[in-house]
């Protein structure tokens, strides 16, 4: 049975490195309830020793990440040991010691905007963006490829647009059955396109065309 071998504190709590105090606390509560001896999912999976070890690790993760000083040292250690590439610039001054301040300031919209602008100046990224927009039909894969090329993370889009990650993922993974009605979808696609700095109308038209074709293909098969 693998325990938490090789996982860092963020991975143990399943949170991004940019998480706020509230997010860490929620993740901590979730983890405790998941590995609790009464949890229907895990009660039969671990021995008492294994469970105690796991709970200890979770508690260590929580106490380290909710202490600004300890967290900064820990993050630096992750960088120094090469476990993460670099600290996201916006993280540096944004550890929130006061839990009452907003949790959404972590992602800086301006910084995302300038990062995308910068990326789009690179020739290969520009070419990719142009090629994708020239397509008559756009799939989630196209959007995902472009998002990765301009180095924007799903969570950043979620923070800026307030669209849930599950919907964003469903869009990118072409899980059409999971998507909201068209009216909402249009507005979501528009927000998404704006962050990637591409023509929203083309994205909406292209994506909806893909959906309607997929539906047609589905309908033409016998029910």
């Amino acid at each position, binding site marked *: 049975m693998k*325990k938490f071998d090789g996982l860092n504190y963020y991975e143990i709590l399943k949170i991004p490195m940019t998480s706020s105090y509230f997010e860490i606390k929620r993740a901590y509560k979730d983890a405790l309830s998941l590995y609790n001896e009464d949890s229907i*999912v895990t*009660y039969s999976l671990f021995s008492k020793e294994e469970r105690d070890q796991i709970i200890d690790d979770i508690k260590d993760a929580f106490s380290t990440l909710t202490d600004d000083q300890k967290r900064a040292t820990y993050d630096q250690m992750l960088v120094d040991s090469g476990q993460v590439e670099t600290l996201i610039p916006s993280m540096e001054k944004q550890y929130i010691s006061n839990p009452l301040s907003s949790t959404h300031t972590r992602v800086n919209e301006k910084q995302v905007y300038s990062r995308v602008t910068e990326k789009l100046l690179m020739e290969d990224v520009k070419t990719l963006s142009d090629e994708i927009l020239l397509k008559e039909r756009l799939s989630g894969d196209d959007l995902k490829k472009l998002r990765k090329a301009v180095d924007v993370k*799903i*969570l950043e889009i979620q923070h800026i647009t307030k669209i849930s*990650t599950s919907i964003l993922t469903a869009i990118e993974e*072409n*899980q059409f059955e*999971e998507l909201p009605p068209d009216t909402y979808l249009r507005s979501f696609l528009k927000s998404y396109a704006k962050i990637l700095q591409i023509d929203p109308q083309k994205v909406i038209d292209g994506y909806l065309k893909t959906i309607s074709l997929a539906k047609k293909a589905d309908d033409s098969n016998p029910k």
Partner: protein
Amino acid sequence: MAKIYPIGGGKGGVGKSFITASLGALIAKWGKKVVLIDLDLGASNLHTLLGMNSPKIGLNSFLNKTVKNLENAAVPTMIPNLFLISSFHCYMEIANLFYAQKLKIIDAIKQLPFDYVLLDLGPGTNFNTLDFFLTSKEGILICTPEPTSIENSFRFIKTIYFRKLKQMMKKNTFDSVFKDPSSDLNGSGINPPDIIEVVLKHDSGKETFLRNTLSEFKFKLIFNQFRNNVDATLGDQFKDICNRHFYSIFQFLGNISYDSRIHDAIFSKILYIHKYPHTQSAADLKKIAARIISKIPSASFGKDML
């Protein structure tokens, strides 16, 4: 090459045969050529779920060589594109299959010229069930959202690992200490997956090899008989825990809602999805079938959120 999906999962009565029949019918409707093989040896009744009388031709014909190959043992069902290899007319003691016969069946399954082969396995973790499950690198685990069933699913995964490791040890040279791990392990109370840790300590050269072999497995999970009062995220929790603490890839295919009419359908020998095509459970089944043939990519592999 056919996609082979063994359908198993520890506990009896969780709906393995029902799901096999339903998924088979749905996949066949999408124009794929599907064969269901009833490998619940000695307790086969897949034909009844499909609304058929027990077919005369089946696994028995293959074993006693009245048909040339396993393909010829498949009989058409009432559903176009859907075929069945039944084990109903096999001799009475078929449950205790000879090892050579089992290998012959497994070998023949891998050669079947169909798009999809679904294996309906028996409950429990006896060698037949395990070896049939190991026919493919991808298998489907059926579970109900109850402690007993979840417990058995873990046991099933562990036993699959254990069986696979033993198979590998037969073929590869391992430190003799591990030649008969069962005796060692039973005494020391080590769980089967811990055998990797044990091998590590003594034979670290094999670590990567063992891990790689186990990481080639893909388990797909289905929660059946899902009632409204159960936490809807249970399936994802289960999948996450497995991905974290076992050595393979786990994908959650979805929940199938509980519906008492499923029993009515079985009584009337009409496939539920045909009798009640517009119910929640039928929609759940359809979604899962679509995920299996990758019409909808699953939501559940997504580790890449950051």
